Every structure is written in C-alpha cells, then in structure tokens.
C-alpha cells in the first residue's frame, strides 16, 4: 500500500500553502534517524545498482542499453506507459468527477472499489485479465472474430497497466474536486457559459496539476510493472517483451550487466519524473503563497 500513501502525500502538498501551520525545524535526532532510514532503505540499494551498472564504463552501459532487444523493450515500455497515461488521465478524471459531483446508489461501494487494484497482487491481475480476455473466454472469442488480439499482444500490456495504475489519477483529483469552490462555476453558468466551457475554462485549470500528479505517478509505476504484464503480454522479444521482463530474462540468462543497465534507465526515468513533479509543485506553492 506504499503507492496509496504516495498519492495521499502528493495530493496533500497541493492544499494552499498559506493554510499550513508554521513549519518547525525537526530535532536533529529525528531528522538524522529518518534520513538514515531513507538512506538504508531507498538510496543505498539504488546506488549499489547504479554503480554496478556503470562499472564496465559508460560505453559498455550505452551498448547494453541500445542493444536491439533492450532498446525495443525500453521503447515498448515507454510507449505503452504513455498510451496508458493518456487513457488513464481522461477516465480517471471522469471517474473522480462522477463520484464527487453525483449522488447515485452504490457510490460508497464504488469509492471503496477504486483502491482495490492496489491491493490485488499484480500476478493475480494478469490471471484475471487472461480469464476475461483470453482466447477461451466469451469476450476473447468475440474479439478474435473481429480480428482484435488483446491478450498475448501489445493492447494487453496497456490493459494491464491501466488496471494496476487505476487509483492514481482518481485519488489525486478527488480531494481537489471536493475542495473546489463552486461559486466560480456557478458564476460562469449565470453568465451564459455552457457546461463544457465552464469545465474547460474554470474547472480544468484548477484540476490539471492533480491530473498531472496522478498521471506522473501512474507512468512511473507502469515502467516497473512486471507481474501482470508477464501474464498477459506473451513475452515475445521485439514485440511484447517489456523492460522489466527483459531485465528478469537477462538475469536468468546470466547477462547481469545488460539487466542492470536497463534497470538503471528505468530507475533514472522514475526518479526524474518524481523530481520534476516535486519542483513543479513547489513552484505552484510559491506562486499560491505570493
């Protein structure tokens, strides 16, 4: 559930800055302890991996990453994650909108179900998706008639990624929507703006930072997804083998450096996304406070 915690943390930082109580300096012991913990748990393993990935030199690193199978796996991973993010941003925002703005029977249940994808082991996600869309299922048979290959093909990867990142956008947009001051929307409506114009010009500008946060977290999460993808993608090299599956395969095949180099790329990208996100948010906080 670490992922859910990240969402919560990311969204709370967006409440207007002036509402914060005055920050105190943490006592040295506390600061030291938490930094030490972070160092041992997070930074050290990342460092160890990065150092090993670069040990044979930057040229060896580069050739390991650009080796055709690795390169394709990376491209595939980024492309599918990107498509997933576009779909997830739209559907996630819409879902958050519906559960915040409308009353309907079963709303509480829907709200509870949203977090379920985080609780399901990702391997189980893969099994569920194969059960639903697999060649022997009703849905799978219908899709096969239409020439749609989902399971054991690239669309399957996107499906799996959408499932495992489902809560991110919703949970990051929801609190912002809840806290939104509706008087501006009402004013727009009285001035004759249609619902679409109101949404695009009044609501969306407030929402987009949270949509961006949710999307960035989804993207980062999707880069590393293994369990569900390995079940549903088919794992064919140069077609459906994503970077994490490539990494595992190369470890099994004794190509440790190849695996580490690709891992380092995934790690660096995730880190970059989170750092940029953090910077953007800080920028906004300062902007809000001013």
């Amino acid at each position: 559930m670490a992922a859910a915690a990240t969402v919560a943390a990311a969204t709370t930082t967006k409440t207007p800055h002036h509402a914060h109580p005055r920050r105190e300096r943490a006592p040295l012991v506390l600061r030291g302890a938490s930094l030490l913990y972070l160092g041992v748990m997070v930074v050290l393993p990342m460092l160890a991996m990065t150092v090993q990935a670069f040990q044979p030199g930057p040229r060896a690193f580069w050739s390991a990453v650009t080796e055709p199978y690795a390169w394709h796996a990376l491209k595939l991973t980024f492309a599918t994650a990107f498509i997933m993010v576009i779909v997830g941003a739209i559907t996630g925002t819409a879902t958050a909108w519906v559960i915040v703005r409308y009353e309907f029977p079963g709303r509480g249940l829907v709200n509870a179900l949203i977090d379920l994808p985080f609780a399901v082991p990702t391997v189980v996600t893969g099994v569920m998706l194969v059960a639903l869309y697999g060649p022997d299922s009703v849905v799978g048979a219908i899709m096969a008639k239409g020439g749609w290959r989902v399971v054991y093909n690239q669309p399957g990867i996107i499906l799996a990624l959408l499932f495992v990142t489902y809560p991110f956008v919703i949970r990051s947009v929801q609190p912002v929507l809840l806290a939104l001051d509706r008087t501006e929307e009402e004013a727009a409506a009285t001035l004759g703006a249609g619902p679409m114009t109101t949404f695009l010009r009044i609501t969306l500008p407030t929402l987009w930072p949270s949509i961006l946060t949710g999307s960035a977290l989804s993207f980062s999460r999707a880069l590393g997804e293994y369990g569900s993808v390995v079940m549903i993608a088919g794992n064919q090299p140069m077609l459906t083998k994503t970077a994490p599956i490539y990494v595992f395969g190369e470890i099994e095949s004794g190509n440790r450096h190849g695996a580490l180099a690709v891992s380092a790329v995934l790690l660096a990208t995730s880190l970059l996304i989170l750092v940029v996100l953090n910077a953007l948010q800080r920028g906004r906080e300062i902007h809000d406070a001013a």
Partner: protein
Amino acid sequence: MELPPSRRLRFGLAAAAMLASVAAGCDGPSAAPADSLKIGGYSVVREVLHEGIIPAFARKWKEKTGREPEFAESYSASGAQARSIASGFDADVAALSHSGDMEILVKAGKVAKDWREGPYKGIMTNSLVVIGHREGNPKGIHDWADLGKPGVGVLYPDPKTSGGARWNVNAIFGSGYLEAAAKDAGKPDLSAVKDLMAKIQANVVNMDPSGRQSMANFAKFRTGDAVVTYENELLLRAKEGDAIPYIIPPATLLIESPVALVGPSVKKHGNAEIAQAFLEFLTSAEGQRIFAEYGFRPVNPEAKDAVPGRLEPAKVFTTADLGGWKKLSDELYSTNGLWTTIAAEVVQNRRN
C-alpha cells in the same frame, strides 16, 4: 492510530516477541541441528519431495537412528534457487533443473567440483521432453515438425525467463541438429533446423514465464493446440486426476536434473550424516520408485520395474550429445544466439 499507553506497550512487546521468534525460527526449534536438513529445490520437484521422498526418508531415518528428522524446504525457479544459494541461502541439498545451474554453485564455491562423480553422475531424476495435445489429437501432432504446421497454436515458456524451459527448445533444436550432424559431422548444415525452429516459434501463441504457467494456460484457459513440456509434469497432472494426452516425439531430449550437497551449509549445520544419507536415498531403488510414481524416469536401473508400459522414444539424446549446457546457452540464448535471433525475426516477418 492512537493507542493508550498500556496497549501501546503490549503492542510493542508483541511485535518484539514476533521479531524474536522469526529470528529464532530460522534454526528450527525442536530437532537437533544434526538431524535437520534444509532443501533448496526447483519448483518441479516440490510435490515428489514434499509428499513422497521426505516422508519415506523420515521413516527410514527414524528406524535407523531412533531420532525424528526435521526438514525445511524451499522451492523456486531453478535459476533463482541457484542464485539464492550462491549468494548465501544455506540449503544443505541443492536440487536444480539442469547442470548449468549447478555450475553456478560450483563457481560460487558452494558445491564440490567433483559433484558428478557418483554412480549416476550427480543426476537425481530423468524425464523426457514431450508434447501435450488436445483430446483426440485433432491437429495430428506426432513429431516436432507437426508443431510448425500452419494453424497449430504452440505453448512453451520463455527460455529467457525460465532456465528450465530451455529443455524444450533444446529438444527441438537437438532433434534437427543431430540429423544434420549425422549427414556431416564436421560442418553440419543447420538451415533445416533453423527453419523448423522459426516455423514453430511463429506458431507460439504465448511464452509464459514458467512451465507451470504454460500448463495452466493450456489446461485452464484452453490456449493453444499443443504444449511442449516435461513428461513428468503431465504424469503428475494425471496422478492428480487432470490428465492431458501427450505424445513422445520419435527423437527427444533426456531431461537430467542434478542434485548435490552444499558443502559450506552442511559444514555450518554439522549435519553431514543425515545429508549424505538423504542424498543416497534419492538415487536408491526405493527413492527412484517414488520419483517414478510422480512421473519421472528412474536413473537407477534397479527401479526400472516402476515404469511399466511407458513408451520409449525411438531415439533419446542428451545435452552432452549437443555439446553441453554452456555451449547450448551461448549458441542458442545469448544476445546473438540462434533462438534469440529467430524469436525476433519471427516477429519482424509477422509484421511485414
């Protein structure tokens, strides 16, 4: 969660006790270390060891010494198991899918260099690479070449993620390679076997991460028309009441899975006596009969009577006939390896 001080204390104590018991649990609470044994096995032998071999051995040990032995068992994919033992998991007995993985342990100094020097060359079980098919064999599958016919959906696990899955691809490669080598031993013409491998790979519906997953997809989700797997896996399913019909190709590969003692672990635990006895029991006629019951083929000729009526292929070859694991691994699965290249080309051709 805000707890009242007394409950907080109790919670802390409970947590500390839990930690302590976890730490203590590693060494086994009851039996003396000399009578306990830690098994690090590959997934496929889980059933036969846990339900068959270990209870039988425990009875024997009790009879012989009057003491109750204690077993700790860990099973995972062969490569993963080998890597974890190599990096410190203190299993006393390593049972792996193939000798290539055992060499990882030799290199790490965990298994003696002479582990092959037993009567059965360090091999614990034999099996064959076979092809499971649908009821009534509607696609007419009798040999490897039939897997390459148009419209046949084939399943085998990814030989990259599953070291054991390489038995399957090695079998397909080997049948063609030996045919070519029979014609010209010096410079065998590999074009026919490459063609066969490409045709079969083009029919592969899905490459699952493990053999077990392939079986599940074939049986439960009814994916594909044929599944390339081990005979013992299919016989185990039949034993559990879920039989899948299969054929043995006329020429196929003998699966030889090794076992060895992990020297440093045995030394650390001081249980050489039980470890040695267990190792001997594995290949004894009695032990091999239990393996046969679970679908393996006995390595010990004294247990041949345990597999009556099992078909023999016309020709059985071994990885040694193909040049050994190391050579196969380099030539087939490295970055520029034959299988790696073919698997990628198949995809390219499909797109055009």
